[in-house]
Structures are given as structure tokens and as C-alpha cells.
């Protein structure tokens, strides 16, 4: 091991950006040693400097970024001494990078074949024909069906998952020594993500490519990497083998991260999540000494707030280092964080009942429709039937195109249902648009949105936006009274009262999302629809916002419809789960019923696709083939038949599946016999005790 030259080595790397406000240190004292064939993960929240490290390795820092200290050695040579010409040669041939947004990495006006062929033509000077042949070969290697057709397509003609495979193919074309992956699956659906992760693992085995995998998702890192660096506020705080860091973390921040993600076993009542208090310091407001100090429960003045902290080796582990002065003083076994257990809230009467709700869109081709034949319909929602009780959390789970947003729109009155009933109490909502609903009905149904940067109007103050809801729903009319309620709501969502006078741009993502929650609860709603309310937030903030949402719901006995694609969050907070695929409910039941067999084959695949950041869990690997079909052109028979591993041809692809009912309302829409469904193996189970270790 030691006689090999590392592919990449960063020594005491410090990177700064120069802005109008002066020098901003983005990364300080960063060390990394990457051996051939090794996969190294970098985990951290937004603004921690993980992407800056990747860009520095590419020597691509724009006009205002610079390496101020340390060195980057690529195969033993310092990259800072290389000429622009040499760097151009290395980039794309020896070091390749895959970015988060596949559509932004591909040139939309060039055929995929031409873009791929450019790489070997430029770097190796081979002929166009040879380059095209190589491109086709590489596309086959990244498991793309029909490479010939894809070579002759434009990027917008293929799906997001396929685009990312093309980008990876482009990176592999010249057999790079080092592959940098910057959140390569964040923009993709979970079942598609599982396919890409499997591909990345195959690549590292097959080609021996060294990889740096940047992600905010600990579960993904566990599935792909050998070693791991945890970054916080521009510094690496913990480095080590995956096993060491996951099982014997020695930095309070790492442990805080694990405490704030819902692992199997966490439960909203018995074992709630523990959020890391406070928020990430801005680069120019970093504290003295340990950057994590102000948020750390083990902080001790005089030790943690003096000078620059160094990395300390953890005794007993190979290459496991941590930037904490007190890691040996902390009792890691005993001091495991535990949330306060809470009483489960009993569910009340049925508040919302949906019966065979169907929503079809007719695609109108405009004024000349008679030229294009009969109008096509998109079956966005097909015969949805479920109920939600008071104080209950019902999760609606599904990937993009499953019809969950359409359902929310029908519920909120922005679209009419085509058929069926939606009853809120005794008001029928299905064909009652929002401007025909009375004020009470409107105020009883509110929504928390996904994107914190979109949820508030940037032109108005926080106070006026919450106040508008209070006035609109007639909670109060008088100015002083409204102000008082706004303050009280800000207290409830744990924000300082003077935020009422601020504009949204002065708030962080998590704070905006809290304001969004305050706004949704301002009119005392009975039902709140939460559309992925935490998926755009940083991990350490997610837990706090989730907990807040649950607390308010608990207090007001609100019914919550929680729309999500993330089964670990759903498992943590939902009482009942509805799994949707292409506009239909495939399975519904209580949380325990969904997570244990019998499964619907889609639920089974979905469970297997979600990465879990826990080494004690064993998971079956199921990777779905193909892509989610377009709702405008769904498969005949069962909508899942095109990707299902259990597909029985002649049955599943021609006839609509029957609804199988198990005990206590657990329903599965599938052609498989109940006995077959019952016989499925659990996807997630605790690993057999590793007695050998």
C-alpha cells in the first residue's frame, strides 16, 4: 500500500475567494490522500466547501478564487506548477467530473454522439469514426439501452437518468485516473438514483478508477465509498474508513448529523430526532477555535475556542482522524443523544375522505386541434380512494409523475376533479374551485411548500405576509391584534420576533421554511398539505423543521398530508402511507404494514432504493430497469408492468390489476396472489450480529 503513489493528494490545502467584503476563506487546512482504485466520500452541508475542493482539484476556481496555501499533488506532481496547456490536457482525460444537473452539463444544441466524440478526438487525436465507435461502446458500458439511437439524439430527447448516464459515459471515455462526482444523483428520482449508484460501484470495480464522491447524503456515501471526510464550515472535521466513521464517530458534528437523520428505529413518538441547534456560521463570521463550538454540547471555554485546531489521530483506528480537542474526554457510549419521548396522539374522526377521485387532463393542441386527431388525455389521478383522520399524518409517497402534485391542486381547489368525491368534513371539494369556496373551507386547508426560496414573496416583509393570511381568514382585523398573532406565530416556529420586519432574503433556507409553516398555520387549518417541506434543506436543519412541524401538528390536532419521495422520513413521521405510481394508488396501509411484507413490487423496489446510513442494516438490492413512463402514455394494464420484476406477460400488461385487501385496511393493487405477496422477503433487516469482529 505505502509504496504506491497516491492518485491525488491534498496537503494543508487552503482556498480563499476574494470578494468586495475582502478575503473569504472557503476551505482551510484540507488534507486528502486518494489511493488508486479507492473511493473517497466528502460529506457536508451547503457552504461547507466540499464543491470548492472539487473545483480546486480541477484547478477551476474562476477569477476570484485562489489556493492560498498547501498543495495538490496529482500522481505525485504539484498541479499548481502545471501550465495552462498541461492542465487542459489533464482535465477530461485524466481527471473527469460529473456534475449535479445532467441537463446543464450537456450542450442542448449538439447531438450526444458529437459531444461524446469530442473527448477522444481532442485528447487522443483519433478519427471521428473511431471516436464515435468508442462513444457507442462506452454508452453500452453505462448500461444505456440502444446506444446507436442515443448517439443520434439531442439531450432533451432522453430522460434525466439517461442524461446522467451519458455524462458519466463522457467522463469515462478517456479512462480517467480520477473521477469527481459532485452530487451526481441529487436531481434524480430514488429508483433512478439506485441505478446510477449501482453503475458507479460497477465502474470502480471494473476500471479501478479512483473516485471522489461529494454528497450531503450519508446513506449514499455508505453505499459507494471506502473512506470518508466529513466537512464543516470549510474544514475537514473527521476523516476515516467508512466503518470507523459510521460506527465509532469521534466528532460531535458527525454524531449530530447521524442524530438528525431518520434511521430505521427512530420514531416520532418513542425516539424523536435530535436537531443540531443553531446554524452554519457564515465564512467571515467563523468563531475562534473550533468552528462547531457554538453549536456543540461538549463545548468548553479555554479548550475549544483557542487558536487553530489540529487533526488528532484516533488511537486504534487506521487513518481515522478528528478535529476535536475533547474527543477523548467525551464518553461516546453514554452520551448518545436521545430525544424526549412523546405520547402518541390518538387519531380522531375522519376529516378528509377521498373516494374514487379521478383527474384527467385533456391535451389541447391549440386552435388547430382538428388537424391533429382526437385530443389526448393525461390520466394524472386515477380513482384515488383513501381517508385521513384528525391528528393523523398520512404520507403520500411517489416519484416524479406519480400525480401527487395534481392531487394537491385538486384538494386546494386550483383544479376540478374529473370524477369522484373529495369530502372535507361534509363539504364536497372535488368540483368546487377555490374562488367558490367559503372562507372557512379555504382556511381549513393550507399548504407548506417544498422550495424555501420560492415559498415567500421576496418583495414583502415576513410580518406582512403572515398578517395577510390572518386578515384574509378573518382571524383578526385590528392591526395591533394581527401584529400580536404574528408575534405569537413566530414564537411558535421558534424565530425571533423582529423577523416580522425582515425581508425573506435576510433569512436562511430553514428560517424561510419555518415562516412558511407559520403562514400555513396562521388560519388555524384542519388539514395541512406538506409538499416535501424539508427535502431542499440541509440535513442538520431538516430535523429541526420536521420536529417543529410535528409539534405544531400535535398541539393543534391537525391532519397532515405529507407528500414525499423519501421513505426514511416517511417511516419516521407517518401513521399511514399511500404509495402512488403513475396516478394510481399501488399500496396503502399503516407504516408498519408498508415496511413489512406483503409488499407491492413497486414498494419493494422503492424500499430497496432508499440509501440508509446505518451499517447495522442489511438491505436487499433491487434495481428497477427502465424509466418511469410518461403519464400521457401509460402502459396498458398495470402501470408498473413495464418495470416490474414479477411481470407476468399476458396478464399484467393487458388487464388492470385487482385490489387485494389484507388485514385492517392494508391494500395492494397487484395481479400477484395474496399468498405470493405474503411470501416476499423483507427488504430491510438488521444484520446478523457480527460475532467475528
Amino acid at each position, binding site marked *: 500500500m505505502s509504496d504506491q503513489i497516491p492518485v491525488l493528494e491534498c496537503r494543508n490545502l487552503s482556498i480563499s475567494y476574494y470578494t468586495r467584503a475582502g478575503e473569504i476563506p472557503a476551505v482551510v487546512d484540507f488534507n486528502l490522500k486518494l489511493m488508486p482504485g479507492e473511493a473517497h466520500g466528502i460529506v457536508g452541508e451547503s457552504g461547507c466547501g466540499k464543491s470548492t475542493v472539487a473545483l480546486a482539484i480541477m484547478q477551476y476556481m474562476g477569477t476570484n478564487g485562489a489556493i492560498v496555501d498547501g498543495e495538490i499533488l496529482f500522481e505525485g506532481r504539484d498541479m499548481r506548477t502545471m501550465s495552462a496547456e498541461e492542465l487542459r490536457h489533464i482535465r477530461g482525460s485524466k481527471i473527469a467530473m460529473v456534475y449535479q444537473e445532467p441537463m446543464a452539463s450537456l450542450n442542448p444544441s449538439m447531438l450526444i454522439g458529437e459531444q461524446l466524440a469530442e473527448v477522444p478526438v481532442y485528447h487522443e487525436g483519433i478519427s471521428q469514426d473511431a471516436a464515435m465507435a468508442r462513444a457507442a461502446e462506452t454508452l453500452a458500458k453505462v448500461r444505456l439501452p440502444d446506444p446507436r439511437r442515443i448517439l443520434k439524439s439531442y439531450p432533451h430527447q432522453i430522460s434525466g437518468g439517461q442524461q446522467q448516464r451519458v455524462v458519466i459515459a463522457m467522463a469515462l471515455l478517456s479512462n480517467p485516473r480520477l473521477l469527481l462526482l459532485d452530487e451526481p444523483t441529487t436531481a434524480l428520482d430514488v429508483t433512478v438514483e439506485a441505478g446510477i449508484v449501482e453503475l458507479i460501484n460497477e465502474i470502480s470495480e471494473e476500471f479501478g478508477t479512483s473516485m471522489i464522491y461529494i454528497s450531503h447524503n450519508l446513506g449514499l456515501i455508505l453505499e459507494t465509498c471506502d473512506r470518508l471526510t466529513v466537512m464543516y464550515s470549510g474544514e475537514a472535521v473527521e476523516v476515516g474508513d467508512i466503518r470507523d466513521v459510521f460506527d465509532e464517530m469521534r466528532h460531535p458534528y458527525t454524531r449530530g448529523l447521524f442524530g438528525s437523520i431518520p434511521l430505521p428505529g427512530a420514531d416520532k413518538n418513542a425516539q424523536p430526532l435530535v436537531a443540531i441547534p443553531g446554524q452554519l456560521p457564515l465564512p467571515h463570521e467563523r468563531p475562534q477555535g473550533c468552528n462547531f463550538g457554538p453549536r456543540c454540547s461538549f463545548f468548553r471555554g479555554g479548550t475549544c475556542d483557542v487558536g487553530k485546531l489540529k487533526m488528532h489521530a484516533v488511537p486504534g483506528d487506521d487513518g481515522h482522524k478528528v478535529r476535536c480537542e475533547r474527543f477523548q474526554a467525551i464518553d461516546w457510549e453514554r452520551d448518545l443523544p436521545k430525544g424526549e419521548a412523546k405520547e402518541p396522539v390518538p387519531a380522531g374522526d375522519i376529516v378528509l375522505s377521498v373516494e374514487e377521485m379521478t383527474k384527467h387532463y385533456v391535451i389541447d393542441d391549440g386552435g388547430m386541434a382538428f388537424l391533429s386527431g382526437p385530443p389526448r388525455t393525461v390520466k394524472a389521478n386515477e380513482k384515488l380512494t383513501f381517508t385521513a383522520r384528525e391528528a393523523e399524518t398520512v404520507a403520500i409517497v411517489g416519484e416524479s409523475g406519480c400525480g401527487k402534485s395534481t392531487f394537491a391542486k385538486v384538494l386546494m381547489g386550483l383544479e376540478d376533479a374529473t370524477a369522484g368525491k373529495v369530502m372535507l368534513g361534509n363539504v364536497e371539494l372535488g368540483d368546487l374551485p*377555490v374562488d367558490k369556496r367559503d372562507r372557512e373551507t379555504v382556511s381549513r386547508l393550507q*399548504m407548506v411548500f417544498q422550495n424555501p426560496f420560492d415559498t415567500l414573496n421576496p418583495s414583502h416583509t415576513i410580518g406582512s405576509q403572515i398578517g395577510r393570511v390572518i386578515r384574509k381568514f378573518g382571524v383578526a382585523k385590528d392591526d395591533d391584534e394581527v401584529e400580536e398573532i404574528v408575534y405569537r406565530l413566530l414564537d411558535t416556529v421558534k424565530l425571533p420576533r423582529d423577523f416580522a420586519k425582515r425581508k425573506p432574503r435576510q433569512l436562511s433556507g430553514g428560517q424561510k421554511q419555518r415562516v412558511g409553516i407559520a403562514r400555513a398555520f396562521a388560519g388555524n387549518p384542519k388539514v395541512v398539505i406538506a409538499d416535501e417541506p424539508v427535502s431542499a434543506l440541509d440535513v442538520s436543519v431538516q430535523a429541526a423543521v420536521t420536529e417543529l412541524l410535528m409539534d405544531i401538528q400535535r398541539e393543534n390536532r391537525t391532519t397532515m398530508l405529507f407528500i414525499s419521495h423519501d421513505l426514511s422520513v416517511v417511516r419516521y413521521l407517518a401513521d399511514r402511507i399511500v404509495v402512488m405510481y403513475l396516478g394510481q394508488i399501488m399500496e396503502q396501509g399503516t407504516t408498519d404494514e408498508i415496511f413489512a411484507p406483503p409488499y407491492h413490487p413497486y414498494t419493494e423496489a422503492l424500499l430497496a432504493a432508499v440509501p440508509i446510513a446505518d451499517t447495522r442494516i442489511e438491505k436487499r438490492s433491487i434495481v428497477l430497469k427502465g424509466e418511469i413512463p410518461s403519464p400521457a402514455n401509460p402502459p396498458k394494464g398495470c402501470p408498473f408492468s413495464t418495470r416490474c420484476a414479477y411481470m407476468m406477460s399476458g396478464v399484467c400488461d393487458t388487464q388492470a390489476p385487482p385490489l387485494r385487501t389484507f388485514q385492517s385496511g392494508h391494500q395492494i393493487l397487484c395481479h400477484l396472489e395474496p399468498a405470493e405477496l405474503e411470501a416476499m422477503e423483507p427488504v430491510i433487516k438488521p444484520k446478523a450480529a457480527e460475532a467475528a469482529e
Partner: protein
Amino acid sequence: MAVTELDAGPSFLDRLSRPKPLIVLAVLMWIPLTVYVMFGDRLDGYADTVLLPAIPATLVLYILGVRAFRESWVAVLGLSLVFFWLLMAVTAPYLPLMDPNKPIAPFTTPFSEKRDVFFWLGTDFKGRDMLSRVIWGCQRVIVWGVSATMVAYVVGALFGLVSGYLSGWWDEIISFFANVLLSFPVMVLFIVILNYLGPSGFNIVVAVTFASAPAIMRIVRGLALDIKTRDYVFAAQTRGEHPLYIMIVELLPNVRGPIIVDACLRLGYTTVAITTLTFLGLGLQPPDPDWGLMIRESAKTAMLWKFSYMLLVPALAVSSLILGFNLMADGLREMSLRD
């Protein structure tokens, strides 16, 4: 010093830079000037006092503007050019100048004669003082140019919001009319409208509105189409807000950034258009001074090199004002990119 300032909270100038005081200052500057230019002949004895509050307001606005733009010298230059002419416009009656319409000695070349008032630029072919005419002339160009642009913006933004937010048939109809109007060459449109309505300041406003509003509507429509997909608009819809409320409160404030930049550029176009129209004899009527008119009147005499100053002076005045608007637009765009 810096510490005491911090303790005292925001400074006086900072407090003036907030939206409300800024609007008050702009009104104080703009309303007297507009009243003076549009209805000056009906003011009788008050004509000389009406512009007095506008002078300090203009100066304060200029100082605040320089403070806001201080990091871009281009923008400060643009601002200075624009405010130079604004200051000339509001102080014209109080400056020691000759009467702009009284003929003295014709064809007096610049700096050739000394008098006890400012008399630097000589006289034109009728013997009227050039300096005085240039300074008085900027009043009409600025007031009518800005008024026309503002009206065009109100109309264009309104239609743009309706067409972008409501979509459907509203969009079809509004866009169709906008396309018809845009298919006319601008000058032809001006000439048709002004020939039909007769040349006057108010009709110039109408003509400029017809010519500019379709383009403004397109910009606002595009922005509205983007913004109406944001969650905060969705939130307003789901609490049952009226479409008018959503357009005015939720959409309008968020389209202002690109619109302000475009407005500055469009002020430049409008100034050109008005000057051209008066040059063609379709705009403001003689004898009151106006830059376009000055160029028109001196066009023949200025063929002689010796008298080219009669053309150059008003031409430079127009160019400097338009350059000022354009540089300001540049500076605003730079500032908006920074945040």
C-alpha cells in the same frame, strides 16, 4: 467616528434612502416641474414660485443617487449627466439668463460678446440666446419624455400582467394587438397618430404609449409567466386571493428589477423619438425653446461651418441626456447583478 455612527443606528442619509422618503423627494421634484411645463401658462402670478421646492429635492436626490451608485463610476457619470439637466430644468427661471424668445443681435458667435448675464453660446439665426434656449429647452424634453415613458409603462405593465397571469383568451387577444402594433415601423406609427390627433405634448404621450407599450407588455408578460409558477403565488391562490390582488401585490413588485433597467433605456429612446418628432414638425410647437425644434430651425443655417454651433449645441445636449439615461441603466443592471 465610525463607532459613533454605528451606535447612532442608520445615518440620516441612510434613512432618506428608504422607499418612502425617496418617493416623497421624487414627487417634490417631479410634480412642480410637470405643472410648470404643462400648465405654466395658467399659473399666472405663481409661475415663479412653483419650482422652488423642486430645487432642494433634486439636489438631495442627486446626493443619494451618487451614494447608491458610488461603486460604479459609469453609473455616477450617467447619473450626473441626467441630474445636470434636471437641475437646469428646475432652476431655469431663476438663473441669470436672457429671455429665450427675445431676439437680440442675430448670428452672434459663442464667446464673442460679453453681457452682464450668462451669455456664452451666442445667438441663433433669429438673434435668440442659445444658452438660454438650450437650458429652457431641456424642460420640455425631460417632462414630456419621462411622462410619456411612465404612461407607456403603466399601460404596458398592466396588459403584460393580465396577459401573463391570466393567460388563455386574454393573452391571445392582448398579444395579437401587441403584435399588430409592433409590426408598424415606429416612425410610421408616430406620424400616423400625430397627424390624426394633431401635434401637441399630450398627443406625443399617446403616440409614445402606442409605440412602446407592446414591447413593455412583452417583457412584463414574460416575467409574469415565470413568476406565476412560484410557490408564493400558489400560496396566494390557495388562500382564495382575487387575481387582481395577486397581479398587483404578488407579481408586480417582483418584476420591478428588470423593468427599472429597461425603463432607463426606454427613456433614452423616447427622448430620441420626441426630438425627432419635433424636428419633423410633428411635436411641440414654436416659439418656445425645444431641442428638436432648435435643430430643425438651425438645420439650414448651420450648413455654414461658422454657424454649426447652432446645430451642435442642442445635438450635444440631446446626446448627453440620452447617454446619461443609458449609463444609468448600465449601472442599475450592474448593481442588480451584484446582490
